């Protein structure tokens, strides 16, 4: 799951330079997981515009998706922002994210 290719700072910045897209990304970060329907509900733009932004964010490695039935849940990937942050911010986010993974894994193997 961990990205091994370098995320260039340019690609990340190009993706986040658009204020609407940045707002979408901030909402994904602030939600643990969120669907396109929920994102559209609290926004002034159409669902197809939101979907377009989600595709760009995913391409830039900033978000991950988890399909479940007819819904797709989106969540932020802190490592996508790695080129922008220092080690302390990176690991602050990274470890919090990994603790959440650990909690999910434990639920799976030790229900």
């Amino acid at each position: 799951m961990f990205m091994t290719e370098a995320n260039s700072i340019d690609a990340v910045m190009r993706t986040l330079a658009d204020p609407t897209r940045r707002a979408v990304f901030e909402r994904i970060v602030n939600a643990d997981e969120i669907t396109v329907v929920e994102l559209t509900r609290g926004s002034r733009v159409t669902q197809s515009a939101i979907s377009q932004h989600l595709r760009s964010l995913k391409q830039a490695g900033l978000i991950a998706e988890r399909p479940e039935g007819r819904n797709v849940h989106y969540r932020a990937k802190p490592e996508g922002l790695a080129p922008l942050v220092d080690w302390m911010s990176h690991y602050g986010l990274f470890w919090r994210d990994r603790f959440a993974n650990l909690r999910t894994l434990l639920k799976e193997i030790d229900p």
Partner: protein
Amino acid sequence: MTDTATLADTRDIVVDEVFPHTPEMLWRTLTTAELIGRWLMIPAGFEPTKGKRFTFQTTPAGAWDGVIQCEVLEVVPHERLAFAWVGGHESNAGYGSRLETIATWTLTKVAGGTRLRLVHSGFQVPKNGVALQGMSEGWPKVFEKIEAIAGEQVN
């Protein structure tokens, strides 16, 4: 720079959470390579044995290949695991700068489960980041930075 100044200029990241599982079960997730790969990253060469060296492949930056070099420093079954976490390159600033840290995991049995405390220690300030802006501010700080840089690009 004196030794005192060097010591005073390092900071830790601490994550401390209670899990509704036994210390034995948590220990398994921390010390089994296959399980580590499912919640952290896939380790290469990991064994829970003092002195054992292993690596993680992460996102490269500049002259650094993205490999985190680790060495098991302490193993107390079901209680404590520590390993060195070293990476980065002198020529980088921010993410990817030279990093010489230690990750220490402490497990404590509590009512209803296990307290897991991670102390990731040895971040140098300012080389590895300004401590107060790291963990405590998290995402808001990142967004400030994004907006600042995005603003520069637009202007």
